[in-house]
């Protein structure tokens, strides 16, 4: 399936290669570079490229291209999903998936890649299994190893490989047993010029951090599970229980993982927590324009909207912007033409406003489109859909775990057309 993998940084250096079958020459990447050149930006490099003898399937993560070489028919998503899993694993092991982290840990990276694929077919991708085979690097361990000469490799088959719950290690022990759930919801929305909602949807995830000893069997129930319209599960969740009782019943993996992602049924109206007033105009035959944006919270929330950032991709003809803001700070990148206004918390008493003059290239025609505003925000202690966890029960173990649930709402792809 997957023949080889090349990791390429933004300046086009191939800084790692790994082959699972015969060696494929680096020159195959030339086709990738060609496609990269053709595409205006990294986002537009086609994920699948056909070359005379191979197919290249690539993903772009953290400023690195993961380019895999394929020789025969394979579902493209299979490869793409696997490459993302590789990137996730690096993230998990090294705290970040950057070129430096990979270069610094090149041996571990190689050992990981060796375990993850056999002859191009995934062998072990479950983080719990990998961590038993290859221990993640820590400063303490490397010191200990250099003194004692012990290694980072597990000498026996990870227990997960043979069990029916490959996601969990056999012997887990904690002095403090804790289970935390973060309910994170994101609002995707398109707001049109007049302020009415063209499209809005709530997508959520429950990220868990579970540090429980032994083999706990958990069940998590909601006050209003019917809200969840479409759900995707971590493999640990018993699908049948969900189907029949709408209860999440599972033996959790150890550590951090995503329990479910969900979409809230589209019949429910989405409460949009902020509104934007905007005047952006460019005069005909003049080298300047007006920019005036005010953002405010909607009344009915009762919670503070914070972490507000407005990003605007200005038209190419814009040279410069002279603005004043009543709150927060703004920057304008004249190369990328991106205006970023970092507002922070919005208080309803004094609405943040950013206004001023836009300088255009002289002689350039008036931009036809007004730029749209991309808005980020956060609301703590609120799940905008109204989803509420009812209770968490634990079976199979005797101790009493510490349990916690946190709610947070964020802007997802939140766009205001002007």
């Amino acid at each position, binding site marked *: 399936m997957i023949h080889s993998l090349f990791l390429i940084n933004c300046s086009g250096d191939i*800084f790692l*290669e790994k082959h699972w079958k*015969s060696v494929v020459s*680096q020159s195959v990447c030339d086709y990738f570079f060609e496609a990269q050149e053709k595409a*205006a930006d990294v986002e*537009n490099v086609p994920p*699948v490229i056909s070359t005379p003898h191979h*197919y290249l399937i*690539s993903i*772009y*993560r953290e400023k690195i291209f993961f380019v895999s070489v394929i020789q025969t*028919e*394979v579902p*493209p*998503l*299979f490869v*793409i*999903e696997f490459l*993302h899993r590789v990137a996730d694993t690096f993230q998990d092991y090294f705290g970040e998936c950057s070129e430096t982290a990979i270069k610094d840990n*090149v*041996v571990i990276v190689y*050992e990981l890649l*060796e375990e993850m694929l*056999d*002859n191009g077919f995934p*062998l072990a*991708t479950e983080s719990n299994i990998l961590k038993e085979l290859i221990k993640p690097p820590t400063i303490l361990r490397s010191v200990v190893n*250099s003194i004692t*000469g012990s*290694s980072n490799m597990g*000498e*026996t*088959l990870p227990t997960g*490989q*043979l069990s*029916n719950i490959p996601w969990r290690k056999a012997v887990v022990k904690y002095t403090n047993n804790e289970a935390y759930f973060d309910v994170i919801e994101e609002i995707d929305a*398109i707001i*049109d010029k007049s302020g009415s909602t*063209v*499209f809005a*949807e709530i997508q959520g995830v429950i990220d868990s951090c579970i540090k429980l000893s032994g083999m706990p069997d958990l069940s998590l129930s909601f006050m209003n599970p019917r809200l969840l*319209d*479409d*759900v*995707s*599960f971590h*493999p640990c969740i*018993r*699908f*049948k229980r969900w*189907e029949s009782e709408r209860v999440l019943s599972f033996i959790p993996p150890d550590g951090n993982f995503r329990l479910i992602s969900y*979409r809230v049924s589209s019949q429910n109206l989405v409460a949009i927590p902020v509104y934007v007033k905007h005047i952006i105009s460019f005069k005909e035959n003049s080298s300047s324009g007006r920019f005036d944006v005010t953002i405010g919270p909607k009344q009915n929330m009762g919670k503070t909207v914070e972490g507000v950032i407005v990003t605007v*991709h200005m038209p190419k003809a814009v040279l410069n912007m002279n603005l004043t803001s009543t709150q927060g700070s703004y920057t304008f990148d004249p190369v990328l033409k991106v205006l970023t206004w970092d507002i922070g918390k919005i208080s309803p008493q004094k609405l943040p406003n950013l206004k001023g003059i836009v300088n255009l290239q002289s002689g350039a025609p008036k931009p*036809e*489109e007004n*730029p749209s505003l*991309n808005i980020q925000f956060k609301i703590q202690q609120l799940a905008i859909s109204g989803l509420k966890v009812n209770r968490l029960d634990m079976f199979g173990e005797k101790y009493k775990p510490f349990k916690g649930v946190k709610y947070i709402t964020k802007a997802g*792809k939140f*766009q205001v*057309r002007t």
Partner: protein
Amino acid sequence: PVTCRHDDLKEMLDSNKDSLKLEAMKRIVAMIARGKNASDLFPAVVKNVACKNIEVKKLVYVYLVRYAEEQQDLALLSISTFQRGLKDPNQLIRASALRVLSSIRVPIIVPIMMLAIKEAASDMSPYVRKTAAHAIPKLYSLDSDQKDQLIEVIEKLLADKTTLVAGSVVMAFEEVCPERIDLIHKNYRKLCNLLIDVEEWGQVVIINMLTRYARTQFLSPNQNESLLEENPEKAFYGSDEEDSKDDKPDAASLVKRKPYVMDPDHRLLLRNTKPLLQSRNAAVVMAVAQLYFHLAPKAEVGVIAKALVRLLRSHRSVQWVVLQNVATMSIKRRGMFEPYLKSFYIRSTDPTQIKILKLEVLTNLANETNISTILREFQTYIRSMDKDFVAATIQAIGRCATNIGKVRDTCLNGLVQLLSNRDELVVAESVVVIKKLLQMQPSQHSEIIKHMAKLTDNIQVPMARASILWLIGEYCEHVPKIAPDVLRKMSKSFTGEEDIVKLQVINLAAKLYLTNSKQSKLLTQYVLNLAKYDQNYDIRDRARFIRQLIVPTEKSGALNKYAKKLFLAQKPAPILESSFKDRDHFQLGSLSHLLNAKAVGYQELPDWPDEAPDPSVRNVEVPWLPTLRFSLSLSFPDPESVSESESESSSSSSESGSDSGSRGEESGDQSEEEEEEKKKKKKGKEGPRKVCPESAGRYHRHWRGEGAGSATSWELRNTSRDMGGLHDSFTSPALERRDQLITSQPQHVPTAFLPPSAQMLSPVFSTMKTYELLHRMAGEGLSVEYYFNRQPFPPDPHMVAVQIQFSNNTESEVKNLRVSEPKLVSGMRIQEFQEIGKSMVGIDTCPQLPGVNWAGSFSLWHVSSSTHSRQFYVSIQPPVGELMAPVFMSENEFKKEQTPHYKHCTVGTGTWT
């Protein structure tokens, strides 16, 4: 300096200290990772293959696999180490020895690899067996002559019952022998049932393979629809001819109209894959989506839309692939994505390639009702800064306009407004699209043509210029004054034009010459002369050809007369089609579909067969579950005899109605008369049991219930529960999770373990479960149920009595019911089953006491039955509990019997002592 450094590494590798070796190996691996050549270190490295330190060893493996191909002779030195490793008591070491051994691409060791794979395929550890499955394609790519032997190994591993092996062996199957679909038959149900517990990568491979398998083994679930479409015509033609002769066509159409019944195995696949739409892995979701798209009845495909839309939230590359597949699906099954229309709305921050795919989907989804919303969206898109996207939007508007007549004028007006856009690309694209639209109704739009003629002065994009010229030429009668003037201007700039424009100038000249030769004769001559000496031979060629055609000379033949007809013929308007049309002949989700070209190794998705192949090939001989298999046959009576038998049957039905369900100890009896007698005797002992409607309904729910997602066939479920009761050790978390799983090795329960002194008990409990043998839909009206009456069977104490009830749910009668072709495994016996000659009519239940009995032997049973007109293959698989008889014995006797061998049986019967 390079050699120096390598010397240094060699020294470290030769040292006695593991830490130095490790350091050296780490540096070497780092070199390999960067793509630097480290092959000259091979001798120094290979020496360390047996190193005690596991990390050094692993890194040596990495090195070996990378360079063994280049240094084959030296690589052979390491082989013995791996051969030793294959015998290691630690399964991880056995597995990794096999992994490395099979990854060394040295042809000379093929026989060693073959041997190792064969041995590993029967290893105790499923992990080692998994590794063996991985090794199969490696060996195959090294030496394809080994195919036959490898297929044997694949066959063996396909029979493996662990989830760990399933995905890997199917992968091997797909790479080595995807054409051997026959190897799947026996493993089909198992694969379906294991699927949910297989790791996600294996799921993708299995689902894709099963899609292909289903296409060869089952009938199209949508065939009735196509039949309905075809039928009226056929019936019409048919009746015309043969009405007078006889009613043959009626019979023919009856056969045709035979209701489609989905093969339970087909249903099993659909049901067991559905929960995987909830997988976190996009590849799994896509695999299930394509399976449903290719295999599910139209009404059920809709479920996949929600899951696919969910994937649109994922990474850009995932979005890109999913949108391509949605684009193809949305052409065939528009309705299923319509509720999610807004999820395809475009954001200015989407990358262009995503925008264009979303646009494609939006266009495919456009219909009369939603077009105004979609056009409003498009208006926003047209003002985008991303010009490639704007061009695509204009084309999308064009497609909406051609497909939906209602909005054609609105679209056209919108596009004409775009002609005054500042961006030339936008104007050019609009021109091209307007040209296509105008072809549909040119007469009404001479104003637009005039407007476009003016554009030739400004617009430089060749395609747009060519389009305008073509339009003017084609509709020169609508713009008689402007056309010659355009030609005049174009002849001036002719030499500087692009080739496609030049060709259209010649075209325009020719058309004008034919319609308005007075004004344009000289101009045409001039243009043709210029073209005659053009650098491009296509243009020279065209000019010569056209001159001959339009200018009458002595030499030019009859063709000249038809020149006008040739040039100014009515031309059909172009159809604007999606580029994704018909892409679904590639299996969706595949690389080939994405590229719209066959990729290497792509397996065609076969068409549905016209006739379903024998479904019994999938029946599995489960060694620990005796199954009774037989087919039921019955004949439909001849039309003449109907009236006669009707009276008969009415009496018999009334009789049987009262008797239904009463069962006695002597139920094993064979002869019909006797049976009748006994029924009378036993009448009233048990209340009459209505069988047909309720139980049929229950059965129905079993198969198609809402919770269908997770259950497997009921036989398996029952048995697994029973087994669970027998073996306490058997409650693994996975079993709790999905109870249909049978993970234990088959357990042989001993046969008829009755001690001679034991005394059989009559049953104490009376809740008897009836099982469906043949559903009335599948049986074309005949439904058959059975249950275990838990009574001793006097003719033979080693046999178990099974009560079978036949009910006829149709108006027509059924006769000559018999069991044929019982497939009996050795050690299995069946009492003769006599033919039921009686005919049955009406919805009455007609209970028969055929007394199919079988020995309490725990081996497999097959029975089958047949008649000339219909034959159904059925099988009975009794739960383990039904094959045990309650026995009375004293405590001492019990203890005596309680040898280890029988231990688990006594658990079951212990309560009786």
